[in-house]
């Protein structure tokens, strides 16, 4: 789980924070409320998840409840992989 979290964090810090202030982002922080993600950002995130973890994200799964924090993303990926 922790390597999964790290992988997600690295992507988010590099891609949305460009390496700045990555240390202040906790696994529970809302990516929307922190202003890290916009409508294109959601698509970037979904592409990252599909490519990196080899899972297929359905349209109805693209909701903040699944994707709006590092912790939520990790849980979502874990459940999806377990379900395969």
């Amino acid at each position: 789980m922790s390597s999964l979290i790290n992988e997600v964090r690295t992507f988010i810090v590099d891609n949305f924070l460009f390496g700045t202030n990555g240390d202040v982002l906790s696994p529970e922080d809302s990516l929307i409320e922190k202003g890290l993600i916009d409508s294109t950002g959601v698509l970037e995130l979904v592409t990252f998840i599909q490519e990196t973890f080899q899972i297929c994200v359905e349209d109805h799964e693209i909701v903040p409840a699944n994707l709006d924090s590092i912790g939520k993303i990790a849980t979502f990926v874990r459940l999806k992989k377990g379900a395969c």
Partner: protein
Amino acid sequence: MCGICGVLNFNSNPPKANLIADMIGTIRYRGPDDCGVYSSGKIGLGHARLSIIDLEGGHQPMQNEDGSLWISFNGEIYNYAELRRDLEHRGHRFAGHSDTEVILHLYQEEGEECVRHFNGQWAFAIWDARKERLFLSRDRLGVRPLFYTWKHGCFIFGSEIKAILSYPGIRREIDLIGLDQIFTFWSTLPPRTVFKDIQELPPASCLTVEAGNVRSWSYWHLDYSRDDEGLTEDDWAEKLLALLADGTQIRLRSDVPVGAYLSGGLDSTIVTSIIRRYSETPLKTFSISFEDAEFDERKYQREAVQFLGTDHHEIRISGQDIAEVFPEVIWHVEKPLLRSAPAPFYLLSSLVRQQGYKVVLSGEGADEILGGYDIYKEAKIRRFWASQPESRLRPLLLKRLYPYMGSLQSQPASYLRAFFHVTASDLLDPLFSHLPRWELTARIKAFFSDDTKSRLSSYNAIQEMRDSLPTAFLEWDPFAQAQYLETRYLFPGYILSSQGDRVGMAHSVEGRFPFLDHRLLELAARMPPQIKMKVLNEKYILKRAARDLVPESVRKRAKQPYRAPDIDAFFAHGKSRLPYVEEMLAPDRIRQNGIFNPEAVGKLRDKLRRSDAIGVKDNMALVGILSSQLWIEQFINSPRIDSREGKVSDDVLINK
């Protein structure tokens, strides 16, 4: 249209005429037809002229009959003929037939109050030799630019900052707060500029320098206090059309042929249609079209041309074209940009010039004053939704916004809710309409270096904006509040300047804007907001007023805001199109200029190499960093600022 400059020296040495000539030389493209310098005693004035009215006379700087008043004037006073008749009745005699002379006579008659009578766009300086007073003024909306500074007992001013920078001893330094403002609002908050110690005279302001003291004041204010006057929709539409027709007609006053910009949208089609009605001569129109279909509006432009029967010319623009002229564009706009959108207008004005034209009318301003922008619509929907936060249906209206943004349109409702979420405290914020835009923009300040961040740590641009609102603001309707924020700041600081005056004058082309006639603006400000935007139908009253003036397809089309490719202009398939792009973004160059964090810029560069999914914020960040670097290279790092077109010859100098 022209360029002006000058120096008032309170020390013993009079301003040297050749230095004034060097100043005006830096902005000679603003007025290539004629040039003049006057220097006497404490004062030196410079002028570069684009001859439009009174081609034979009208040389500047111009004096009155007894030489006690001298003026250097950039702009047009459209009601000069009426003012002149009135002055003649009061006994004034005129030597020529220029509007410049009318300003001088009205100043003689009424002093500084004369500006209240002008209908037009102007920036001028009058030297009143008897009172030893220098009087500067700028038009109500800030169509024409004017900047100034103080140095060693000298007051120095110019149409553009580069004229001031060319004067000996002027330091060229970045104003970091100005930069912070651009990275929040897309423009600085006047009088601040992005150059330390150089001020902009705000729109609708005058400034007097007398006996070493400076006094500045506003002679006009945007006022959205409602007055329904018991009018019906038809009454409003009739008044609007009458003023628009008159405002267009007086903007056709010129001794050279006048053309028009045609975007394919409602506003420019209406203006062109009115010109067709009131003018017999053949009319040339000019358009921007894009190779990238996402931005292109050719289909509507052609329908408008067919309907209007004009002699039409278009310039087709690619990403590569934008990248090629972008450094020149930064030289002209004199500030960092967050969008490439001024560059196509720079290319368009070169087409106009090639066609032998130097004056164009356009539909600029209609969206600001009659409620056309998506940001007004967005604020209206967010407010409507916030009144019933649990509503499932209301957020679906958000899909009516930004129809051209595919990534937004494909979002499920839950994400839309999250993006446009409104809290109770947001609703109470006077900046409600613009906060989402400014907060999004401000996030690109994450790219600032640690040093820049620490020097700006105690500054909050959005709070400064809150603190600067007029007291009446809170009494206005929310729709009017959004209009004020747009019209007072982004409009003069970016639309009229970076995307207007600067890129037009770069090729000696003057823009004229019938929607900015202050009588029309004052009428629109009094209108009930619901006839500007009826439910979500933007510029409803304009569409109604002008229904016979535009083809139905143009009247009923979905509004498409003018946009141009940003990152795609500079990169294709992850590679930069031109070497300067890589040079400006290279870690060493970023570190050397000190404003941005080289590692963060490197990560953005990496993202461009590997990804096609690039959002609004990344686009703004890239253009903002690139343009800042180009701006620093050209204005701060370069050894000196001088004319790019050679020196002004000595025979223009008038020494007394």
